[in-house]
């Protein structure tokens, strides 16, 4: 293998000032973190309260922090790319460096920003919404998080150790094969995604089991909040889609490290099969990240219009239809492969069909707002901003779904504009709505409205300034992933405008981060637990919710349980009475999930550099940890009644 005889310094010394800058900043940040933790004597606290926790609320917070950090990291990539493309013939980034940056931008945004963001929301909201004390498998939940975390670390260190992947976030064979992409970069991609993917599948199973088996008594399926329903649909997709990705990545990895020929050009390989398998996962993935956003919008629209959601049953069925139909559309990502008329026609029609349930949802949100008493708080602003953006992106999606026309649009900036409109206007706006909506429930204070509005307008104006010109650029012939372009193509002005928009979004992010910092110190504290006059069960709890969530599990009679009780003035039925409290059964914290993640990281790192002894050591540790877990018989404990009464009294609920 060419990698093994690279000198160890060759991995770190690349000669690129940007990479030296990254080396230095990673070093400084690491030293800073170690210093702060040591100075304030927080190591034990970090280990006991966070690294070993199995509490879904804390795992949710860790996912959230990771997602926001990764948004910053991949957003910086985006700004570097837009800087490079602002003017023709720039030399800010070289071609291979540009390739690495667009690859990590896409990979990080999908796998390490969007996915943890939806996992954060699942963890934060679902158990509280269904009246459960934790998820079905709290230990597995922690394992999922640490697999995600160490997968993300593995991809992120690639930049400074050995070189980033550079074959695009889709990592198509044969480009991503050993012949065209030698070196460890692609291995980093394959192993990081494989490790984090195991965690994603586990999360899918975990939350589906939680929702099906652990709802409070009386909460039938058709009384579940719509966000929880959206998570059902999402998890069905995760369970059936992610294995396809795992197989595609594994086969490509075997090609690369063991000399197989699944996807090579010669020796009977079939590179198109990789592309086929990638999109079997890839298209459902779009809906995996989008459906939770739909769930969020449904909650936010109902809450801030003070109306029950319009067409609840239509909302549920449209989500389930999306989760099935989105399985039958994947070939629209490669119409130009030449699958033939019948293949392309089938997938074109299926792709257009998906617009119907999605359209139903958009109309239902608008009908919910109709004649509602709308309050323009931050979550509602993001929801309203989502609708026009999503409709525009949906319309361009319909154009892309027309197979013959797609030959013109394929892999042009028209496509880039389309999927950013869906993923930013759909997913990211939804995640931001959720961030502002559930923030008080998680942290006990409300995010400042003024900072939020600055962030909102910078993001929104920036978004349209950045991406609308790209539709035109695509039609003018500009292809995606070009690292530069000549003057005189007529592309300069539009590219420059697009770059301005990207930086406006960057300013929006700074306002968002600034708003969080400001609110930590000065934000309005949420003393009621119900800052938005909410409708669902989580708003009946104090903010933040106690460790065990519900001192007494409530009985559900209504879809908008908390709202109905408030309407009838019967909130007291959810008040805790001391005589009802029994010892609460909870899972114990465990160090093993963290260690399993670490062991996978070591194994992955070994495979990246073909250091098989290291890989074997890592995998051996994984097996040992699994064995140790299966012989662990006391993984749970009971919170005594006195302690529950003490906590509830301190919260003023007894």
């Amino acid at each position, binding site marked *: 293998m060419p990698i093994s005889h690279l000198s160890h310094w060759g991995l770190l010394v690349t000669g690129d000032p940007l990479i030296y800058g990254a080396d230095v900043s990673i070093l400084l940040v690491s030293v800073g973190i170690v210093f702060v933790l040591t100075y304030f004597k927080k190591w034990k606290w970090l280990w006991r309260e966070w690294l070993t926790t199995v509490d879904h609320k804390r795992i949710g917070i860790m996912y959230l922090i990771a997602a926001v950090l990764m948004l910053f990291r991949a957003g910086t990539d985006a700004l570097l790319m837009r800087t490079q493309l602002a003017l023709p013939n720039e030399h800010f980034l070289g071609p291979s460096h540009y390739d690495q940056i667009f690859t990590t931008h896409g990979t990080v945004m999908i796998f390490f920003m969007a996915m943890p963001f939806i996992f954060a929301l699942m963890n934060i909201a679902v158990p509280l919404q269904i009246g459960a004390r934790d998820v079905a498998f709290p230990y597995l939940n922690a394992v999922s998080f640490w697999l995600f975390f160490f997968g993300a670390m593995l991809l992120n260190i690639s930049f400074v150790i050995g070189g980033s992947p550079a074959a695009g976030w889709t990592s198509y064979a044969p480009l991503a094969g050993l012949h065209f992409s030698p070196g460890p970069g692609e291995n980093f991609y394959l192993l990081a995604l494989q490790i984090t993917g195991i965690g994603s599948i586990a999360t899918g199973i975990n939350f589906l089991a939680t929702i099906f088996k652990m709802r409070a008594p009386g909460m039938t399926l058709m009384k579940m909040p719509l966000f929880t329903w959206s998570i059902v649909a999402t998890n069905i997709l995760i369970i059936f889609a992610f294995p396809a990705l795992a197989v595609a990545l594994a086969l490509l990895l075997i090609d690369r490290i063991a000399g197989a020929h699944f996807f090579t050009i010669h020796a009977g390989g079939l590179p198109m099969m990789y592309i086929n398998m990638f999109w079997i996962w890839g298209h459902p993935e779009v809906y995996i990240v989008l459906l939770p956003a739909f769930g969020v919008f449904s909650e936010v629209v109902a809450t801030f219009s003070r109306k029950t959601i319009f067409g609840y049953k239509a909302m549920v069925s449209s989500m389930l239809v999306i989760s*099935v139909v989105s399985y039958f559309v994947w070939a629209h990502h490669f119409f130009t492969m030449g699958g033939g008329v019948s*293949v392309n026609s089938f997938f074109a029609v299926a792709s257009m069909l998906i617009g119907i349930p999605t359209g139903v949802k958009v109309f239902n949100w608008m009908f919910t707002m109709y004649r509602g008493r709308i309050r323009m708080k931050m979550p509602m602003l993001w929801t309203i901003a989502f609708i026009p953006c999503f409709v525009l992106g949906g319309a361009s999606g319909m154009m892309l779904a027309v197979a013959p026309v797609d030959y013109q649009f394929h892999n042009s900036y028209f496509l880039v504009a389309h999927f950013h409109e869906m993923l930013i206007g759909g997913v990211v706006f939804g995640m931001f709505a959720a961030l502002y909506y559930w923030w008080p429930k998680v942290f006990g204070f409300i995010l400042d409205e003024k900072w939020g509005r600055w962030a909102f307008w910078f993001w929104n104006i920036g978004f349209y300034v950045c991406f609308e010109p790209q539709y035109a650029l695509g039609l003018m012939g500009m292809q995606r992933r070009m690292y530069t372009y000549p003057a005189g193509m007529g592309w300069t002005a539009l590219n420059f405008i697009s770059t301005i928009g990207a930086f406006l979004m960057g300013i929006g992010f700074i306002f968002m981060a600034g708003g969080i910092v400001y609110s930590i110190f000065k934000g309005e504290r949420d003393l009621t637990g119900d800052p938005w006059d909410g409708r669902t069960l989580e708003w009946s709890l104090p903010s933040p919710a106690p460790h065990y969530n519900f001192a007494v599990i409530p009985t559900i009679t209504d879809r908008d349980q908390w709202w109905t009780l408030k309407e009838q003035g019967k909130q007291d039925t959810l008040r805790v009475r001391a005589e009802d409290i029994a010892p609460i059964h909870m899972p114990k914290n465990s160090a093993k999930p963290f260690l399993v993640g670490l062991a996978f990281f070591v194994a992955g790192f070994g495979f990246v550099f073909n250091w098989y002894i290291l890989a074997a050591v890592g995998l051996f540790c994984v097996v040992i940890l699994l064995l140790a877990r299966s012989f662990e018989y006391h993984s749970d404990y009971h919170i005594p009644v006195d302690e529950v009464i003490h906590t509830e009294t301190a919260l003023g609920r007894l």
Partner: protein
Amino acid sequence: MLNTPESSRGIAPHHAERFPWKGIIGYVLSIILTGFSMWIGLTHAAQFGAAIFIILGLAVLQIFVQMFLFMHVTESDEGPPWQVLGLLAGLLFVATIVGMSMWIMTFNGQAS
């Protein structure tokens, strides 16, 4: 209370422990099935088309071994049998993935 499925582990100590015959039989069977298909693949004991056919057949048997001996497919407590619904959905998706991938990859005679 006690609504975490993990609760069974701590509350009911493993008094009903029996020898895990099911697990042992499944383990041996899955090793035999895997070993046999590996042997066919490595020794070229059958012609290519026949080998593929045999290996696919063994894979289907393997699915049944996994489902009945390890994955509790016949067990259920109160409530709907979710695992059956899950299997049906899985069947639909697997048929889709395999069938349509073959359809797409024939290129309808345009290439190859």
